[in-house]
């Protein structure tokens, strides 16, 4: 390959001037002639039978075009929302979700009717006038109670509330516990949180009846995926549906599935004959966009008294909400498969039970199972360290696989590609001044001040996914990623990809890869994504996969282009193919660099007469890349907090993050991902929690007044550094970084809070570690 010039360069994101000056183009910026606005009438009850829906009064409201209920939609929609059911090997009860409630509502905020009106305000006003009569049914909110025999049911016609119950055995767990000198148990709660993308979901649909064509603009991470399921739901051929995801203001995993409103807007356009737009308000966003996390993990840890970890038992209860999320079960599976973390255990045993409740579905949120895994195992090793009175850094180091042990197979059979865990921990400890800090901690304790130092040494999984490993858990999805690299006659390059950028900066990083791989100017490379009409089929962007799968696809396409270009260049240079070398965008005969053809010259030749015998014109390549393995980023984060024992307030004094995501395309973007990820992890650790009323199932944190999203005042200045351990699984040696910050952060913060409060005998703190919670714990401990 060419000498690297752009890969690794700390250049500004090319998307930013457009986005930060308000020149982005989001779905809500778009209009269609004759467009009607859709407003969704949502259930005011968490569980009820719909006795009647009276639209008489609402129909008289100004500007109303039409009002539709499930009965109307049944004429044009069938089936239900997809669920990756095959993950659920011992599948129990997975209710089908039609995009709109017909006879029974099962969560607060579920669609029951839609109103189309000429103007957005008219639609909202008319929606208020739709009268829905409910007959209340028992509400299931507490998911631990919901799994018990004889519990009230989230769906009145279901057998019970159990969506799945699956075991993940790894090694002889009984033997591991028999060998133990100490065992510790804890219940670790992963509260529900809102993914809270800056841009709520927005959909615009235009169905053209005579052509039987649908165009759908939607704020999604997965345009091709949405197209497939609209094709099934609406019975329109995939070729007749165009899905466009233009600028998208964040997703964090909450936009990686088809949603009811996408079906409803498309169907409403078909029913009404008008283009239809729906814009989600923030209040709706909290009710009706999937939530993250929502788990209980009961853990039991066995260790020797020298700190050697032996066995880990994990029972996961997953609060699915009323309908199993599209990737709902995947999160529990990932949480268990990664529960061993970066440690050598003799045995790890996991069990997960998926439970239905009368709440919004849970689905991926930044990390999707890995923050849960990191949190539980990082808490587990701290619990052992506390029990053994060992330094938590020493205990970790003792149980890491060494660099020479890679590829390392964890206790549940996952093969970690490369790593050097001690190195990131060493670096983080140096940065924070660990020994001095421990001394300062004990001095402060004598003064009645409570400093805490929290470690989180995580490993995570990226690059989903190798089809061989994921197809049986993903519902037979191959999860390959695609690219088309096309060099135009004048030498500029268009790249179309199946991934989608909604904050990741792909326009920049992918162009950096192409510039190097083809030896062309960075500015001559244009990246297309998000429009199914001009991009190859791809599974979209999530799971930190875009670079490690999509990026490699692009690089591979570039290699194919270079291979063909080399043949053309050899023909032009009247040399044998094998005698021509490609170096920084120039083709020349070995040893004669002065007589060369540039990629641009070759590109022109590729479109003119005189090509080698039998060669087709054009210079482009397509790749569907299926990676040989996952990639496994890792790192060490250290958080330092001081807890005010009189108020319970937590002050983050320092936050160190040393991450290793393999080779790096753009350091600035990597740092940005860590910053955002850590902020969201801190949010979960200290501030955020979705609360439903236990008795009614109403959303108590229904606005941003009640839900604490951290802002700039709450996030400390982060100190970042990195190590680089290339991945051996792909040609660029890259791993992925989109979720690492979130995966590491909650454990680092909570371990710091527990460490601060350990003089009170406190061993565990639930999230969010709010001041009232901590004050109460301190008060109890002081008794």
């Amino acid at each position, binding site marked *: 390959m060419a000498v690297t010039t752009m890969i690794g360069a700390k250049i500004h994101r090319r998307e930013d001037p457009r986005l930060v000056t308000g020149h982005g183009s989001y779905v809500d910026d778009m209009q269609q002639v004759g467009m009607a606005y859709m407003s969704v009438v949502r259930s005011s009850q968490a569980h009820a039978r719909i006795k009647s829906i009276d639209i008489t009064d609402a129909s008289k409201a100004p500007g109303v075009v039409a009002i539709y209920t499930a009965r109307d939609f049944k004429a044009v929609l069938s089936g239900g929302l997809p669920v990756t059911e095959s993950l659920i090997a011992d599948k129990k009860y997975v209710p089908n979700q039609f995009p709109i409630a017909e006879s029974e509502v099962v969560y607060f905020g579920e669609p029951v009717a839609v109103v189309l009106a000429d103007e*957005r*305000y008219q639609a*909202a*006003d008319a929606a*208020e006038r739709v009268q829905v009569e409910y007959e209340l049914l028992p509400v299931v909110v507490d998911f631990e109670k919901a799994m018990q025999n004889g519990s009230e049911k989230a769906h009145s016609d279901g057998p019970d509330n159990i969506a799945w119950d699956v075991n993940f055995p790894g090694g002889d767990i009984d033997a591991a516990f028999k060998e133990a000198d100490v065992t510790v148990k804890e219940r670790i709660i992963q509260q529900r949180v809102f993914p809270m993308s800056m841009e709520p979901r927005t959909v615009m649909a235009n169905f053209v009846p005579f052509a039987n064509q649908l165009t759908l603009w939607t704020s999604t991470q997965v345009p091709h995926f949405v197209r497939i399921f609209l094709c099934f739901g609406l019975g329109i051929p995939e070729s007749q549906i165009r899905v466009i995801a233009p600028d998208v203001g964040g997703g964090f995993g909450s936009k990686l599935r088809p949603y009811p409103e996408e079906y409803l807007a498309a169907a409403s356009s078909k029913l009404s004959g008008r283009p239809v737009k729906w814009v989600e*308000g*923030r*209040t709706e966003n909290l009710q009706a966009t999937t939530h993250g996390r929502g788990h209980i993990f009961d853990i039991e840890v066995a260790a020797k008294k020298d700190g050697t970890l032996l066995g880990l038992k994990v029972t996961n209860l997953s609060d699915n909400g009323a309908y199993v999320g599209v990737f709902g079960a995947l999160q529990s599976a990932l949480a268990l498969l990664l529960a061993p973390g970066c440690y050598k255990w003799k045995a790890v045993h996991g069990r997960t039970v998926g439970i239905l409740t009368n709440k919004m579905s849970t689905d991926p949120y930044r990390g999707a199972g890995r923050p849960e895994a990191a949190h539980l195992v990082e808490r587990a090793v701290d619990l052992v360290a506390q029990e053994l009175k060992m330094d938590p850094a020493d205990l970790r180091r003792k149980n890491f696989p060494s660099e020479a042990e890679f590829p390392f197979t964890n206790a549940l059979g996952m093969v970690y590609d490369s790593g050097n865990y001690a190195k990131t921990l060493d670096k983080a400890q140096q940065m924070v001044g660990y020994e001095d800090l421990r001394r300062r901690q004990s001095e402060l304790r004598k003064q009645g001040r409570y400093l805490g130092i929290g470690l989180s040494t995580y490993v995570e999984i990226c690059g989903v996914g190798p089809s061989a490993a994921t197809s049986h858990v993903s519902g037979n999805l191959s999860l390959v990623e695609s690219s088309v690299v096309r060099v135009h006659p004048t030498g500029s390059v268009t790249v179309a990809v199946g991934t989608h950028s909604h904050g990741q900066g792909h326009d920049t990083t992918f162009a950096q890869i192409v510039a190097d791989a083809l030896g062309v100017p960075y500015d001559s490379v244009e990246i297309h994504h998000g429009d199914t009409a001009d991009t190859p089929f791809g599974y979209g962007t999530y799971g930190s996969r875009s670079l490690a799968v999509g990026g490699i696809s692009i690089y591979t396409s570039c290699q194919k282009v270079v291979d063909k270009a080399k043949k053309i260049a050899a023909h032009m240079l009247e040399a044998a193919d094998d005698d021509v070398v490609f170096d920084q965008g120039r083709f020349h005969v070995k040893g004669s660099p002065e007589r060369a053809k540039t990629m641009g010259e070759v590109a022109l030749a590729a479109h003119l007469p005189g090509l080698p015998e039998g060669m087709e014109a054009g210079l482009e390549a397509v790749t569907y890349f299926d990676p040989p393995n996952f990639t496994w980023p890792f790192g060490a984060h250290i958080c330092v907090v001081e807890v005010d024992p*009189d*108020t319970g*307030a937590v002050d983050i004094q320092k936050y160190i993050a040393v991450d290793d995501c393999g080779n790096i395309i753009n350091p600035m973007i990597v740092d940005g991902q860590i910053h955002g990820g850590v902020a969201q992890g801190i949010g979960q650790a200290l*501030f955020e929690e979705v*609360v439903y009323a236990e008795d009614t199932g109403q959303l*108590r*944190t229904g*606005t941003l*007044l*009640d839900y*604490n999203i*951290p*802002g*700039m*005042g*709450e996030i400390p200045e982060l100190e970042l550094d990195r190590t680089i351990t290339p991945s051996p699984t792909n040609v660029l040696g890259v791993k992925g970084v989109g979720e690492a910050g979130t995966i590491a952060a909650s454990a680092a913060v909570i371990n710091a809070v527990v460490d601060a409060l350990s003089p009170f005998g406190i061993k565990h703190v639930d999230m969010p570690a*709010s*001041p*009232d919670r901590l*004050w*109460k714990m301190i008060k109890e401990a002081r008794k």
Partner: protein
Amino acid sequence: MIPAAFEYARASSVDEAAKLLDQYGEDAKVLAGGHSLIPLMRLRLAQPKALVDINGIKGLDQIKVEGSKLHVGALARHVEIQNSEVVKDKLPILAEVAGEVGDNQVRNMGTMGGVVAHADAAGDYPTIALILDAEIVTNKRSIAAKDFFKDLFTTPLAANEIVTEVVFPVADGPHKYIKFRRRLFDWAIVGAAAQKMNGGWRIGLTNVGPTPVRAKAVEDALQNGAKPEEAAQHASDGLNPSGDLRASPEYKKHLSRVLTRRAIEQAT
């Protein structure tokens, strides 16, 4: 997040505003900074039939000292109160409190009159007004702060009555306002104010009941020579705060004591 339909009128004088309010009747609301009212309307928790916008009334934003009184016009924005040399000089606790309200956007728009008339239990100015015996002046009369904050979101203001200014006594002695909150831009979970004035202490609490609270028992204990930590134990006497997602009643009472002690100790 779309408000119900409403009419809108912009007044250029207090008299005109009062006339418009008369005209629209009970369901009209005065629009000042709008940073409480507009969110409530967007959530459809408030659905006024009409808004009377007073932002165009000249002179209603004045901040001035007359004798031993500080006059803060109803339309004085938080940022103006925060940065006013007059306020910093004559009633520095008010500048301190103004600087703790919301974020820049809120401080650029929100007003003294709006906060007072809205009478949110978590509002910070009402606590200061109460403990300093401020007067709330309207187009009709002057009302003592202790008679003004009657209940949660409840004041003696008539439908056509508009707050025009709040008159505080000058007080430049040691003072401190501590606003305990989860996030920098949040309302207070509990706020505690301490102001030394005329040789005695004025102590107040925010968000520990439906109205601001003057902690007389603490003031009296200090007067009788109690140390701050002893006196502050009385901060929760008689309090019966309601709990919410952020704090239990018990925690709020505890915070009242802790923050009162700190406010007195940190007053400068």
